[in-house]
């Protein structure tokens, strides 16, 4: 499999960029320190207050000190904010995906292995989760929860709570097929308990479909996080996230185009790289799998 993936040029490119982004996210403080900046310090002197607070100077105030210029309205260093933004964007997406996979497998396997009633009950729950529009409900939920809970964690939790339906559906379907396999029957004939069957016989069979699905879930969740931050219910200041930066950039279209372009391009690039990784995994692991998170 690894050999197959190595030959997939899209996958390799995606994996490199995605890995780089994860690295950037992890080493954000280091990178910012390297640039000699942090993401909270205001630089009012670099702004033209009379013109609404646009960075003075060409190209959004790019200079030797501020490699990518400064944020209009505050003068905070854009490079520092972008690398810290990666932390939230990538971190939330990864955490949410992990949680979704956990929830989805638990519910899916329980439904698939359980009796008629358990399956019917859990399936309705899964249907409900699949049916609700994630963004809309996330907005409601985030408006209700106390504001002082740790925000990135909360975002990941909310996204996961509303988004595990897909993983659960796949796990359930896959479990239903796997449980008809004779090797499951063989294990049962040998006297294995349901728990043992789930662990030994079902779970290994789920890895490929779940892995490919989860790989696509990461960029999807990243989009959701960005969307929530865009709607203003995401991270709280002064923490930056690409979605939040894009959201505040909307009023600076013409006055400071770079401010729109940088987070936008970075977000797109990262998403694309994760999609490429997912695509490669899908082809390598399970050529028939076409399911895509929606």
């Amino acid at each position, binding site marked *: 499999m690894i050999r197959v993936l190595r030959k997939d040029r899209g996958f390799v490119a995606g994996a490199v960029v995605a890995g780089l982004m994860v690295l950037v996210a992890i080493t954000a403080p280091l990178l910012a320190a390297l640039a000699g900046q942090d993401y909270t310090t205001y630089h009012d002197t670099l702004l033209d207050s009379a013109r609404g607070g646009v960075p003075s100077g060409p190209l959004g105030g790019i200079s030797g000190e501020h490699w990518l210029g400064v944020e209009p309205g505050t003068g905070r260093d854009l490079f520092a904010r972008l690398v810290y933004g990666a932390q939230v964007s990538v971190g939330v997406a990864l955490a949410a995906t992990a949680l979704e996979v956990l929830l989805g497998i638990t519910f899916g396997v329980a439904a698939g292995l359980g009796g008629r009633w358990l399956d019917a009950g859990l399936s309705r729950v899964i249907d409900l989760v699949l049916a609700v529009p994630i963004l809309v409900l996330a907005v409601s939920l985030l408006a209700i929860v106390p504001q002082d809970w740790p925000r990135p964690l909360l975002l990941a939790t909310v996204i996961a709570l509303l988004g595990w339906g897909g993983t659960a559906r796949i796990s359930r379907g896959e479990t239903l097929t796997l449980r008809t396999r004779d090797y499951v029957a063989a294990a049962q004939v040998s006297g294995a308990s349901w728990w043992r069957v789930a662990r030994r016989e079902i779970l290994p069979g789920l890895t490929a479909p779940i892995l490919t699905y989860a790989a696509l879930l990461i960029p999807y969740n990243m989009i959701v996080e960005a969307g929530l931050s865009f*709607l203003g219910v995401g991270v709280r200041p002064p923490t930056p996230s690409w979605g939040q930066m894009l959201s505040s950039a909307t009023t600076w279209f013409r006055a400071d185009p770079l401010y729109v372009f940088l987070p936008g391009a970075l977000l797109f690039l990262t998403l694309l790289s994760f999609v490429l990784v997912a695509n490669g995994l899908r082809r390598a692991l399970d050529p028939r799998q076409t399911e895509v998170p929606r």
Partner: protein
Amino acid sequence: MTGYLIRRIGGALLVLFFLTTLVYGLFYLAPSDPAILTCGKGCTPERLADVRAAMGVDDPIPVQYWHFLEGLVAGRDYPAGPDVRHCPAPCLGYSFETDQPVTTLLLDRIPVSFALALGAEVLSLVFGIGAGMLAGLRRFRILDRVVNALILAGYAVPVFLVGLLLLLLFCVHLQWLPFPTYVPLTTDPLLWAQNLLLPWVSLAIIQAAVYARLTRSGIQETLAEDHIRTARAYGIPERRILWRRALRGALLPLVTLTAIDIAGIMTGAVLTETMFGLPGVGQLLVGAVRQIDLPVVVGVTLLTGLIIVVANAAADLLYAAVDPRVQLR
């Protein structure tokens, strides 16, 4: 068929019931008080208590919920000034914020959301299927590559990013299009379409990627099926095989998706509606959530659930209509 419908409707009602209960429960847990907003600046506690009573939010939540269910089934009377206001049968109450009947608000928003969804869907189907076919038939290798790249890119852009870029390009730089504001179809069809064009396109770019991918893999899978070999063995021309059989097999899953996707856009396109200022269902909900406008929130949730349930049923019926193998159960 009748039995199917009855069971289906029963199931749908159950889902809707749980959904509303859930939303009521959530807002019960929420620490905010809708009466405070309504009462306004400088509201004294005594006044607040009066307002709360006037709004009917002084009862315990289960009682309120019961009244709500009653109103839904049998209509409901509200004390409002000199006369009593009667809210007829599917009564969802009155908005706390504007005092309009929630049903009116919803009916007002549905056309907007529907227009958005339908247009976006048509665009995405046309472009998605077109691109998917070009790639699926592998006639031209380069085209396949290009379409593939576009499909991947489509998966990788968030709708608001597309929206931003489109706005930047067409409204700010080129100024070919006005900044979008919703114009009802009945007022001016041309303006209507002109203003909806960007939202449509930004939704379609992403949706089309999904369809293209499905079409492509569908065509390739169908072409590998046994009955295609039979057709070839009996000399059926390749073109006929492609158009009549492969495409049909490939488009089948799309039929189901179409209904569900329309519902998805109608209920979930919050970002697009916010971005382009479209007064649709999603925007209504976001506003209502911010204003703790419980009747509107519950109303939108119910409508959302209803649309999704109806769409799913429609998808099943459609599927049964186009695929003779499927039996409704």
